[in-house]
């Protein structure tokens, strides 16, 4: 386990709990973001399809409009300046509003105004007035399509950006944050186990030391009390080793008793 791919934390139980919380958060977040990315991609595909359709229609409509202008010029002569010079303000305006797709705000454009329906309808009264109106309508249609296309294109770009960000987040959660948290948790667990083992070993050591001290004390007492106890003197050297092994087994079997009995062990 390398130290690079984990957080630098103190291996304690509290931090472990925090880390576990973060891990479950990361997993949930990953699932949510994945869902969002899917939703965005779905919408993205829809928009793409619509853009292709609109663009194809655009080509046709623009052609038709340009030709309607030709027809109007054929019938009415050069009416361009007459129309240009009587323009006061924009008759078609575009309003921007917002649409919400899975938390991503997408700008949307809409046409305002009816394209100056009332004002110019006497232009070309003497010749070609009808063609001029047809031309106006054709271009109004083209403008509508343009606005729709602008809406779609902007949505396309915004969504593209949003999808990229979301996917980056999804991947980051999946490939960076989660392994790192998992590693940290594993590390903390390892460290905690290690600590436990060390503690256990120390406990044993203390216990055996105490036992040896008690034995020595007893031996001294026996030696001072009854010097002719030859049987005990012969088995003397073997007794500590045997006694040690026995005590380990005893300590392992009921550690809690020993813990409760010995006042040196604080926990």
């Amino acid at each position, binding site marked *: 386990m390398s130290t690079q791919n984990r957080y630098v934390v103190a291996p304690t139980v509290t931090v472990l709990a925090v880390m576990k919380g973060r891990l479950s958060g990361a997993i949930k977040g990953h699932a949510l973001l994945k869902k969002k990315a899917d939703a965005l991609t779905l919408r993205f595909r829809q928009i793409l399809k619509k853009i292709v359709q609109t663009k194809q229609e655009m080509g046709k409509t623009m052609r038709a409009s340009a030709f309607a202008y*030709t027809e109007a010029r054929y019938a009415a002569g050069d009416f361009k300046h007459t129309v240009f010079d*009587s323009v006061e303000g924009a008759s078609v305006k575009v309003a921007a509003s917002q649409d919400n797709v899975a938390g991503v705000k997408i700008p949307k454009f809409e046409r305002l105004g009816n394209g100056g329906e009332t004002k110019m309808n006497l232009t070309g009264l003497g010749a070609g007035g009808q063609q001029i109106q047809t031309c106006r309508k054709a271009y109004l249609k083209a403008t509508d399509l343009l606005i729709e296309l602008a809406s779609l294109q902007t949505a396309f770009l915004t969504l593209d950006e949003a999808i990229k960000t979301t996917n980056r987040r999804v991947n980051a959660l999946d490939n960076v944050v989660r392994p790192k948290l998992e590693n940290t948790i594993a590390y903390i667990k390892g460290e905690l186990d290690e600590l436990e083992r060390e503690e256990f070993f120390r406990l044993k050591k203390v216990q055996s030391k105490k036992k040896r001290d008690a034995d020595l004390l007893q031996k001294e007492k026996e030696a001072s009390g009854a010097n002719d106890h030859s049987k005990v003197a012969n088995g003397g050297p073997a007794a500590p080793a045997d006694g040690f092994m026995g005590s380990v087994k005893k300590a392992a079997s009921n550690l809690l008793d020993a813990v409760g009995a010995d006042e040196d062990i604080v926990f």
Partner: protein
Amino acid sequence: MYGFEAASFNIKDGYLDAVVRGHRSGLLTQADYNNLAQCETLDDIKLHLTGTDYGPYLANEPSPLHVTTIVDRCTDKLVDDWTKMRCNAAQPLATFMDYCTYGHMIDNVVLIVTGTLHERDVQELLDKCHPLGMFDSIATLAVASNMRELYRLVLVDTPLAPYFSEVLTSEDLDEMNIEIMRNTLYKAYLDDFAQFCNRLGGTTAEVMRDLLAFEADRRALNITLNSIGTELTRDDRRKLYSNFGLLYPHGHTELAVAEDFDQIRNAMEKCPPYQAIFTKMGYGESQMLDKVLYEEEVRRLVFTFEQQFHYGVFFAYMRLREQEIRNIMWVSECVAQDQKSRITDGIVYIF
């Protein structure tokens, strides 16, 4: 009157008559149009046109060519021809030729007035004016803010002055009034032109009567057609019709109350020459009307060249050239917009 004209016509007008008939042979023929219709690009069109009278005007145009450039150069050719003839003209032919250009003059006046109302630059507006309709004091039109001032300050010195007496109101100018003003002026102009031709007498009067009557009737038809569904009242509509023509006065009364295309058709068909035109078109084909009317006009204009010793040829030449420019515009646009299947819909063959 025929004999008298033949005796004296060539003394003053023989040269110009020859010139205009020479120009007539420079008009594009059906073969030319067939060639033009085969073109794939605007450069091809230019190449074909360089073989015609338009050659010198288009020869030096650099290559990415636009339809407007072609049309402008072709108009230049007409304007050059016209000014040359006008310079050489003696009275009363000179006056007659001036009359021919008054239509453009009205358009220019209206253009400048509209532009001024919206505070456009006068110099810019002057560039947009039709060169045939220019007059000396045109730039000063910009000072006027209402009809009365316009008349008092500027138009009183122009040939259009008498026509304004009819539309002289102190109402402020707006789009609606301007469009009505344009048509009222045109009506007054046509009436005056017709009277002038009658005064000239002889073959000129005879030929021009026919042409102007057709022009007046066509305007009446167009005004009716284009005012259906607009705010223009019947009385206002009636006032815009000229006081002559085959439809005057009974046809006009019917046209004034017409509310749809079929009613217009009924009114027009009571006049035998127009009945022939309308039978060419199926019911409900109002789109084709323009072309049919242009064809009829061209047919009449071409006939004027069959007559001798009259001024109608000058008028006819101008109109035919304009139709030709319209044809070239149509062909060029079709080629430029890749709509070659529609080419034949717009060409009016002159010869």
